[in-house]
């Protein structure tokens, strides 16, 4: 499960929906893998405004990954001003969001403490009926 996915996941329980603590989910005992993929600079540029930067910062700390800057980069910071090539900032973002993946572990809700297991990169969000 790519780290970018965590930008869009919250606890599945109806009672947690209104609680800010239900996002982001907190990785637990996560084993990570790096899978090299081609950089798509336009894609990164376009999703940047949709990232919850505070949530991303929290995740990098919890996963023991290099810390993110306090503020998200500006669109200009994503390109080398002379060559127009992807900047190191963009490459780092690409590596974090698209190449770093949770292979196994769990995702814990900060509101209700329920843990969703992750196996082979796939999270199980099915809830027993009494928890829905």
């Amino acid at each position, binding site marked *: 499960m790519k780290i*970018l*996915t965590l930008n*869009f*996941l919250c606890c599945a329980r109806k009672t947690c929906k209104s609680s800010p603590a239900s996002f982001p989910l907190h990785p637990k005992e996560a084993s990570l893998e790096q899978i090299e993929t081609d950089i*798509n600079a*336009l*894609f990164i*540029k*376009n*999703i940047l405004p*949709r990232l919850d930067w505070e949530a991303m910062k929290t995740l990098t700390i919890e996963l023991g990954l290099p810390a993110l800057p306090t503020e998200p980069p500006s669109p200009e910071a994503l390109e080398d001003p002379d060559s127009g090539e992807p900047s190191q900032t963009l490459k780092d973002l690409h590596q974090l969001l698209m190449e770093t993946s949770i292979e196994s572990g769990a995702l814990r809700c900060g509101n209700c403490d329920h843990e969703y297991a992750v196996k082979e990169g796939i999270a199980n*969000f*099915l809830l027993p*009926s009494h928890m829905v």
Partner: protein
Amino acid sequence: MSVEEPNSYEEQHVHSVYEEIAPHFSSTRYKPWPIIESYLQNLLSGSIGLDIGCGNGKYLAVNKEIFIIGSDSIAVIHHLSTPARRIEAVASILECLKSTGTALLYVWALEQESSRRGWSEGDDQDVMVPWVMRKKGEGERTFQRYYHLYRKGELEADVISAGGEVVESGYEKDNWWVIANRGSPS
């Protein structure tokens, strides 16, 4: 159609069937359908989407300019056994959309005379569809899956009942499809 409690009906006639046939089912699902492929290819770079009922994930990588999160729980619209449950499913999907977002819904059609199964307008809409699996050393086993076959116009009506708006609709390869948005508050 009157059914015993929908949850247990679907558990028996959809969920447990797919538990058994999943690997075989997956091996037959690899080629993207034209309407779905063009819908995905026409999205802007950086679009985020959900594939609800993604199966083996065959649509997740169709357009590398977008990011699709897949979820698979078998509870797709045409496997739900009551009108209320189907409308609720459509409403849940539309709820995921921004005001500018769209959803492509794709369901089995009643009107498919030219298909192998040959259903048509006069037939019952709630049917059991066989799935034949041949396992080495076990011979042939046939499973029956519950489907609600959608009639012309019915999916549009479900979208409206769910509070959404129909952007476009049509028929492709024995399926009715609708592109919907979440509708404006009235």
